[in-house]
């Protein structure tokens, strides 16, 4: 039997067998090419449908953990209150998650494990097996995963694949991971040479993944402490269309609305939650028509602070994984890296002025 945390290898010629056997175990989801450089996590049955080299999917794997629409409560409409809380889940394996997407899932895990726990999320999470896949190079110029410490694997998976040419080296992280090795039976022991090759690849990668924005990640909270009244937010005010796309595609955005739906017989109803967005105008409105984030600048600022400042105190980590989805999707061309750069530039200008 394999040791609990260890490395094995999968020769490329066995990859097909592995995927077929994996898809026979339970529903298998992986990145699939949708044309025009778009990718999506979808059910697959064979390796030929999987895009092994892909840029982040349009929607993150969040859609499986926190479905866009999810029933929380079922009830009979009657004089008596008869309601039952429910959870819908599906056993599945997700193959091919990049480190940024694994980081996104880790963020959601922290939020929904915090008391009061969200058992809808947690139940579903327990049914999902995660297999990571390393990026040896940047996906594209929008990625900033290194800045937020999400460019190298740091747990949160059952198995983790790294492509080393003729074979994958695979890190086995959990008992579920070990079980997959046993059942699929396609893996071989790794040697010292395999591990050395992995270290060499990572060394090379460390050189490529660097200096996305000229700031050390540990200084980012401080940058945001200085930037609440920044003019950069004002600029975004004029550009942002308040469509909410940036939050829909973000792997760490989890705000939701709760709604009600009664069927046509008016006998049965459900209460369900749907994704919501802090970028939409009514989000922070209260009674009397008062809105505490009326301006688009205030709403964009809120989004950035929820990625780079507020979660630091609560969870000790960024809630940006640097996946670049918000930038790729924005019709107004608002770029996360550019915003950070501008905040930095403005902050430096201000610091300079203080010295002059």
């Amino acid at each position, binding site marked *: 039997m394999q040791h609990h945390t260890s490395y094995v290898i999968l020769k490329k010629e066995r990859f097909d067998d592995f995927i077929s056997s994996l898809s026979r175990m339970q529903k298998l989801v992986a990145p699939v090419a949708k044309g025009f450089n778009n990718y999506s996590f979808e059910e697959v049955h064979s390796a030929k449908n999987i895009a092994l080299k892909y840029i982040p999917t349009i929607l993150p794997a969040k859609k499986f953990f926190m479905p866009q629409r999810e*029933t*929380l*409560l079922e*009830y*009979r*409409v009657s*004089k*008596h*209150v008869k*309601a*039952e*809380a*429910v*959870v*819908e*889940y*599906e056993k599945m394996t997700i193959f091919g998650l990049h480190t940024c997407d694994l980081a996104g899932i880790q963020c959601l895990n922290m*939020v*929904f494990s*915090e008391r*009061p*726990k*969200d*058992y*809808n999320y947690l*139940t579903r999470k327990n049914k999902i097996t995660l297999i990571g896949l390393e990026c040896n190079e940047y996906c594209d110029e929008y990625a900033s995963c290194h800045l937020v410490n999400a460019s190298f694997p740091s747990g949160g998976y059952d198995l983790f694949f790294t492509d080393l040419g003729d074979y994958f080296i695979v890190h086995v992280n959990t008992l579920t991971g070990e079980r997959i090795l046993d059942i699929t039976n396609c893996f071989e022991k790794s040697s010292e040479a395999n591990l050395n090759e992995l270290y060499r690849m990572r060394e090379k990668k460390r050189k490529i993944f660097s200096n996305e924005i000229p700031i050390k990640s540990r200084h980012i909270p401080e940058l945001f402490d200085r930037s*609440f009244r920044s003019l950069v937010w004002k600029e975004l005010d004029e550009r942002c269309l308040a469509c909410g796309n940036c939050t829909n595609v973000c792997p760490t955005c*989890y*705000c*939701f*609305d*709760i*709604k*009600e739906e*009664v069927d046509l017989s*008016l006998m049965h*109803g459900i*209460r369900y*939650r749907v994704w*919501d967005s*802090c970028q939409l105008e009514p*989000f*922070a*409105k*209260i*009674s*009397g028509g*008062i809105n*505490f*984030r009326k301006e688009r600048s*205030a709403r964009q600022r*809120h989004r950035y*602070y929820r990625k780079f*400042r*507020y979660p630091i*105190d*609560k969870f000790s980590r960024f809630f940006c994984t640097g996946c670049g989805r918000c930038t790729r999707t924005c019709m107004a061309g608002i770029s996360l890296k550019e915003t950070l750069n501008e905040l930095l530039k403005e902050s430096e200008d201000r610091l300079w002025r203080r010295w002059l």
Partner: protein
Amino acid sequence: MEKVALKDSSYQLKRAKILNIKKLTDKEKFFEIALMDRDYLDHEPGQFIMISLLGIGEVPISICSSPTRRDSFDICVRAVGKVTNKLHKLKTGDEVGIRGPYGKGFPVRILEGNDLLIIAGGLGLAPLRSLITYVLDNRRDFGKVHILFGCKEPKEILFSDEMKKWSERTDLHYACTVDRADPEWAGNVGVITTLIPGVDIEPSRTFAAVVGPPVMYNFVIKELLAKGIPERQILLSFERHMKCGNGKCGRCQIQNLYCCQDGPVFNYEKIKYLSEAF
């Protein structure tokens, strides 16, 4: 896709029955409610619950009675929309769904032994009534108690019977004001801040508890600070949209704080830096 019942869900409802309904004003009604299945709410003054009308929706409402009474609790609801209008149509004996209590209320253990200056604007009296009735039920644990109430017009006054009793008590100081008088009104006219300078307090041992519409806060805080009450001893309750009550949905966030879990009651020192609070 499989579906199973989720016993531990924080969205599960407790059954509750309406025991008593009173009309307070044109827009506000009072409800006395008891949890069924021999359950107690066990709240602290200033906390809120989520009330469900199945098929219509769920809204946050402050508990307005003292936890010293365990068998039932009170709420006071203004009809403004879907759920609250339907609530107003319910009758004694009807059932509603409840979750909670949620949030951090007034820290009564810390308030004990001190003087209190309670300032309520309009419907802000609802959450403060839970504190006031708690204090009156445990009167010996508290020092001097001042209650100031203000609203737009005399016909908006909530709990006028109780207010009359408060005004007759010798162990508390009660004052009331309206923005606009009507012909029968014999009391004070003017915004609530006009009552504050006249109150005789010893600031170092006084805690202020303030609940009212957002505009009221800036003006009241200024007066309280002018009186010399320390920032830490000014307690404010905030209202934001709430959907989950669990610190997840993001609706009630004031910068880095969640109103539903970190609040709704905050001390001024903790929240004064937050521009999205006021």
